[in-house]
């Protein structure tokens, strides 16, 4: 066991840990987006999907614990790596010119912190209903939690939607570097898989940003929730 800890404390091992947990979280983000896009299929579909998730029983808590573990390891390792990287150059350059890096790569820790704060806000908003306790009371005709109405009314507040849009954009920036970077870190080398290390990150980031933004934008545009609520 101590051998394993030593591996994941090494530079290469810690990076592998970042990559694996990052890809795990990316998987969640994609699944979350696909689930939520069911809002376009109407209240019945979305509320039924939400009820299915809620009735997973212990499975729900296993999934939540797994996600929390991924998040903690990802954030904890990032903290360790950022500190080590800062310490590796105690005297800064008077003038350093970047020639190959990207905006996304240089801002990973900043976009990461904003996304983390957004996740906390998002959970408080739609899961814990901190700002809108009335969300918990809403039920549809089948006595299920009316997630559809909650999302529609939640996003009708323009500044709430604005927060979501900004956060999604930054999440996209984070993923555009992270998702490609992960495959380099995990040692993907075959020329046929080169796409994973270059185009994959930006592509999956664009899909996620567009997919997630479509929901608040559709609500604000009146395309979703026009007649129902």
């Amino acid at each position: 066991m101590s051998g394993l800890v030593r591996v994941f404390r090494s530079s290469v091992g810690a990076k592998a840990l970042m990559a694996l947990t990052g890809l795990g979280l990316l998987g969640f983000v994609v699944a979350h987006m696909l689930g939520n896009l069911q809002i376009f299929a109407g209240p019945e579909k979305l509320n039924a999907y939400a009820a299915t998730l809620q009735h997973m029983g212990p499975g729900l808590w296993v999934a939540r614990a797994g996600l929390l573990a991924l998040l903690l390891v990802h954030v904890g390792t990032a903290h360790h790596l950022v500190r080590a990287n800062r310490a590796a150059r105690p005297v800064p350059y008077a003038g350093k010119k970047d020639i190959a890096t990207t905006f996304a790569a240089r801002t990973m820790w900043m976009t990461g912190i904003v996304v983390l704060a957004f996740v906390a806000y998002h959970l408080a908003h739609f899961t814990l209903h901190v700002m809108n306790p009335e969300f918990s009371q809403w039920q549809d005709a089948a006595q299920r939690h009316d997630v559809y109405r909650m999302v529609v009314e939640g996003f009708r507040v323009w500044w709430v939607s604005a927060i979501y849009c900004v956060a999604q954009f930054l999440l996209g920036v984070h993923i555009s570097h992270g998702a490609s970077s992960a495959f380099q870190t995990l040692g993907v080398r075959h020329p046929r898989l080169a796409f994973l290390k270059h185009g994959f990150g930006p592509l999956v980031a664009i899909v996620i940003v567009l997919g997630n933004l479509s929901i608040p934008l559709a609500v604000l545009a009146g395309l979703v929730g026009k007649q129902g609520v």
Partner: protein
Amino acid sequence: MRFTLKVWRQAGPDAPGAMQSYEVDGITPETSFLEMIDLLNERLIAEGKDPIAFEHDCREGICGMCSMVIDGVPHSPERAVTTCQVHMRSFRDGDEIHVEPFRARAFPVLRDLVVDRGALDRIIEAGGYVSVKTGGTPDANLIPVAHADAERAMDAASCIGCGACVAACPNASAMLFTAAKVAHLAHLPQGQVERAQRVRAMVEQMDAEGFGNCTNHYECMAACPKEIDVEFIALMNRDYLKASLAADDA
């Protein structure tokens, strides 16, 4: 040609340093960057001042000794060259040129532009070798090597160990250097026996030297005078994880 040089001056490892300004004039375009500093140093010596200390040896781009950051880029903004191969024709008359030493905790400044790159030597000592039986000279091509492997091994082996990758990396990581050395031997049959042990020992030494961690900015490859490919970092990552997590882990 005439230039204003802003050069990092530091009397010793623990002395405080600062950028100092020098005017140089009458430089011909075909003068190399190091020759320009030579000319400036002759003047400084004549004036009874300390010349600017910098490292150099072969001055033909293969020894890896020259090590300075010129206008924010290791070896100069020109692509795929060492400092000694940079000529003043690459600059415009009247330019202000900034010259700094390679910056990394693992590369302490000894004086002016001279840094101690012994950390790279210690990474090599940790495993960048193959054990062979001494004796009579073996026949050439006795061990078959696939052409593609020979080419890739040679690509990796073209690393001259100058440390520009460390200097360019936003995290002062030595992964490109270490990866080139690991990959060079990993591509050849002679390197297989110690392959697992080598990558673990070299990565451990690299970490112990206080280099940062790779975050895939790829600044190293862009600054490398030999254009070593970051593909080798992927190879090192894979070899290290395989060697460390394999069942026969010693």
